[in-house]
């Protein structure tokens, strides 16, 4: 090694070590989607991500127990609930057991005079009391009398009944043997709310395993456990995707290693060929972490895919060298082309860096820093580490067959041109149906899991994951007043059959204004006692039996109003916390909805009352399409940048067009084939197509290179073949995956790489030997 080479290697090692140490100490990978909020995000979109992140509904785990006698299931349900509560992983666990509801019932009863919607001044007039007593008397003379009687002297006006009527879901689960059951009685039902946010797949996985372990410990023999909910899906997807990625990546790596070893016949060169891409990833991730503080999991996944192009750089170099030839000499031949290969990708990604969207910018920085590093490593470090081409030259590659094929390729120009024009036509014709922005269509949640989720959700009367009504205000009190207004029209909407039920925070925590109004409606003790005596005079009730009532009203009159702190320690605190919260847009009160039948009507009514009806699914699709539109602009700008770069370096606009045209054609054909296969495109396909552009441009550049002689041309062609083979094997492995995301990325890249190579060959100009070295 020369001194120059030594210092290059030392510098490179120092940089890698610095990045490595920094990453090991400070790298924090986040999966929090709010990093991806576009700067133009609406308050609704912020609510959307907040809900996806740690909304109460998103953190619900729905649990079903079945396959045993109802007594045994009820027993397991009780034991399971006890264990889950003790685990500390859940904010609350409910199975319908009256013991768990007793505390909440006692709370509601204690505060009935500020919670009951019937509390008005008229209710405590002589006439109002008479009417309320008459109603209670009627109930006492029916089978319901047995329930009314115990609280008759403390709640003769039946305020607790009014409160419960607001809460009782019409079609909730049944109670059997003291716990919740489905209507057919075959399934015991529980709900648990995780403390961990919904997006945290690892923590959700822990919660799921805790439930399974608790069930295994409490089950009574026969029977099975059913689990559903967003967190359960997240955990399951995480597990399947992760194991699949490892499996297929390992398979791909073995294939790539096999191909490269077969070509190089040298372990040292095999190892060296991974150095640029690994250095690129390390430096790229460090750059993102330095620039953004945190690295997002999605950026990592996509970014590493994009840097994947760099695995080709050493191939171009090594394949160019003859056996025993110094790499520096081979490098001198291809340097201009290799520089362009790196620079085009860097230019293409620059638009993303300046997109203003955090997610895209991270991806851009990762690609720019990663690819540049890989290029520099190939250019400076590899020749220093491996001064001379080791191993044997590629033996017996059917060079003649290959070069004949390449010579023949241009004859297919017309066929290819027709196909490409047809592809562009198809894409243009379908331009408004190209994209599928429903991210959930890519997640591997099976149809049977979706059905189970629906049936458990229906049986439990659990709130819809999709719809919400948002009532906002500048202060907590304003938000609560808005929530009360929402409750008003939602009650009407339930009567009209637009939805089955709803749940608003103001039911438990009325606004200060309402509480004060209700407190003011309560007469002073002596006044109330006088009116009660008058009302009792010609009623069937005996005077003197209602002292607990007078006491309770007197207490309620002077009690401090309820605030958030009043609920500490009850399950209601969890509920209020998750449905009444502050964010950068002010205070938000969320109404969760059940059994939504008429979303359009609800949306209209909400906006009429100054609230918002949120369709989380439509909103998330809108968010995705915002991103996709911005990403498409970036791609267009990037392509323009690449074209300008090519024009400047090649000093020939026609040649620049000739390099870039086959890639655009390959992308069009790739998209057309995907469409013909019945697929629609997602953000994942877009990222895959970006990689196709990066890889394909390199193919076109190397095809377009001017070669000193036929031997050199043959070596270039062989290097292209090896590059394409490695890309095809790595992404072909992903293409066999059953998981839609992986499958789509795999198919798109493998197809695109093959098409790029073919079309680059077909449309390659064959400049005479001995021209410009570029």
């Amino acid at each position, binding site marked *: 090694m020369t001194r120059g080479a030594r210092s290059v290697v030392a510098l490179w090692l120092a940089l890698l070590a610095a990045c490595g140490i920094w990453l090991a100490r400070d790298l924090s990978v986040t999966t929090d989607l709010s990093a991806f909020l576009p700067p133009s995000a609406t308050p609704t979109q912020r609510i959307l991500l907040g809900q996806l992140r740690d909304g109460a509904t998103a953190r619900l785990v729905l649990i079903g127990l079945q396959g045993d006698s109802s007594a045994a299931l009820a027993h397991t349900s009780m034991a399971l609930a006890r264990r889950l509560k003790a685990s500390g992983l859940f904010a609350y666990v409910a199975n319908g057991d009256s013991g768990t509801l007793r505390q909440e019932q006692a709370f509601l009863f204690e505060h009935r005079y500020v919670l009951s919607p019937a509390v008005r001044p008229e209710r405590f007039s002589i006439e109002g009391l008479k009417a309320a007593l008459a109603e209670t008397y*009627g109930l006492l*003379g029916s089978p319901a009398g047995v329930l009314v009687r115990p609280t008759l002297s403390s709640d003769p006006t039946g305020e607790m009944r009014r409160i419960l009527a607001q809460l009782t879901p019409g079609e909730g689960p049944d109670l*059997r043997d003291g716990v919740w059951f489905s209507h057919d009685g075959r399934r015991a039902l529980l709900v648990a709310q995780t403390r961990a946010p919904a997006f945290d797949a690892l923590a959700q996985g822990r919660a799921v395993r805790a439930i399974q372990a608790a069930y295994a410990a409490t089950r009574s023999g026969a029977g099975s456990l059913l689990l559903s909910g967003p967190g359960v899906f997240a955990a399951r997807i995480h597990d399947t995707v992760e194991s699949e990625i490892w499996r297929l990546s390992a398979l791909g790596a073995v294939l790539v290693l096999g191909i490269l070893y077969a070509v190089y016949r040298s372990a040292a060169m095999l190892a060296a060929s991974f150095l640029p891409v690994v250095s690129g990833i390390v430096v790229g991730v460090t750059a993102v972490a330095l620039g953004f503080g945190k690295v997002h999991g999605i950026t990592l996944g996509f970014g590493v895919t994009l840097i994947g192009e760099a695995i080709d750089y050493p191939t171009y170099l090594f394949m160019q060298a003859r056996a025993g030839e110094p790499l520096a000499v081979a490098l001198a031949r291809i340097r201009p082309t290799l520089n362009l290969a790196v620079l085009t990708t860097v230019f293409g990604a620059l638009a993303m860096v300046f997109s203003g969207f955090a997610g895209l910018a991270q991806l851009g920085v990762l690609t720019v820093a990663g690819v540049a590093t890989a290029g520099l490593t190939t250019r400076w470090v590899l020749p220093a580490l491996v001064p001379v081409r080791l191993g044997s030259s590629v033996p017996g590659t059917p060079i003649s067959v290959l070069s004949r094929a390449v010579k023949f390729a241009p004859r297919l120009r017309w066929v290819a041109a027709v196909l490409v024009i047809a592809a562009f036509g198809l894409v243009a014709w379908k331009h408004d149906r190209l994209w599928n922005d429903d991210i959930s269509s890519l997640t591997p949640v099976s149809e049977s899991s979706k059905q189970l989720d629906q049936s458990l959700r229906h049986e439990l009367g659990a709130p819809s994951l999709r719809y919400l009504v948002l009532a906002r205000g500048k202060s907590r009190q304003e938000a609560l007043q808005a929530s009360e207004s929402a409750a008003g029209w939602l009650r009407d909407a339930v009567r009209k059959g637009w939805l089955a039920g709803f749940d608003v925070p103001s039911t438990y925590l009325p606004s200060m204004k309402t509480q004060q109004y209700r407190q003011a409606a309560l007469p002073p003790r002596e006044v109330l006692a006088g009116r009660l005596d008058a009302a009792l005079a010609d009623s*069937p009730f005996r005077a003197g039996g209602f002292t607990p009532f007078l006491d309770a009203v007197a207490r309620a009159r002077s009690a401090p109003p309820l605030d958030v702190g009043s609920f500490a320690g009850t399950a209601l605190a969890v509920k209020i916390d998750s449905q009444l919260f502050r964010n950068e847009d002010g205070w938000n009160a969320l109404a969760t909805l059940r059994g939504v039948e008429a979303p359009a009507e609800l949306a209209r009514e909400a906006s009429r009352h100054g609230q918002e009806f949120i369709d989380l699914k439509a909103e998330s699709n809108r968010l995705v399409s915002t991103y996709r539109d911005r990403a498409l602009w970036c791609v267009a700008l990037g392509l323009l940048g690449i074209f300008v770069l090519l024009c400047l370096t090649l000093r020939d606009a026609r040649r620049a067009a000739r390099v870039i045209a086959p890639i655009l054609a390959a992308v069009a054909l790739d998209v057309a084939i995907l469409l013909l296969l019945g697929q629609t495109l997602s953000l994942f396909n877009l990222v895959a197509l970006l990689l196709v552009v990066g890889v394909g441009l390199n193919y076109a550049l190397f095809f377009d290179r001017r070669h000193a002689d036929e031997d050199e041309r043959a070596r270039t062609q062989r290097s292209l073949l090896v590059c394409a083979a490695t890309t095809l094997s790595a992404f072909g492995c992903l293409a066999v995956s059953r998981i839609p995301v992986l499958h789509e990325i795999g198919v798109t890249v493998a197809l695109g790489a093959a098409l790029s190579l073919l079309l680059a060959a077909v449309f390659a100009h064959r400049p005479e030997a001995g021209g410009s070295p570029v």
Partner: protein
Amino acid sequence: MTSGTKNIAKAAIALFAAIALRATASPEAIDAQGLMTMLASVESATASYVETRYSPLLKSPLVSRGTLSYRRPDRIEEHVESPRDERFVLQGDRLTIEDTSGNRSVTVNAGSAGGIAALIEGVRATRAGDLAALERDFHVAASGTQERWQLRLQPRTPALTKYVRGITISGSRARIQTIEVLEASGDRTVMEVRESLR
């Protein structure tokens, strides 16, 4: 053994059998199973009733009137006509409460309806002669004769003991005559029933 002793033995067995038979048919005593068998012979029943609630909170006992109707296997309806028109229908495990004056109706499952459904279930299971169903919610004890029997039901589930101390149903043959409920509050209700059976 001689043929003579054999005959004596046969005669003795016949005598014991006769005594045993006579015992079950005797008007003196009845057990829960026997009572149930008798009640189970009824296909459907309709009745008018008068219920009186004795409560320290009331100036005079509250008298309510209405009708009861039962149809095998699992439907019972209590229609309160006064003081307030209301209908309680327990069919299978679903309880429907219909406020005929307010035109509102809710259906819940029996378990969710707390004490109401368990009380109605007590009457229905008695009417159906379904001892197993009765024993799910109550400790059951029968006494009296076929002509004049009494069934004492003591709640065994916490959901019911919270409201009810005991129920005593009495009747004659397949006919229910009174249903008396002692509530946990100390109130007592007595329902006088006039049944016609089919």
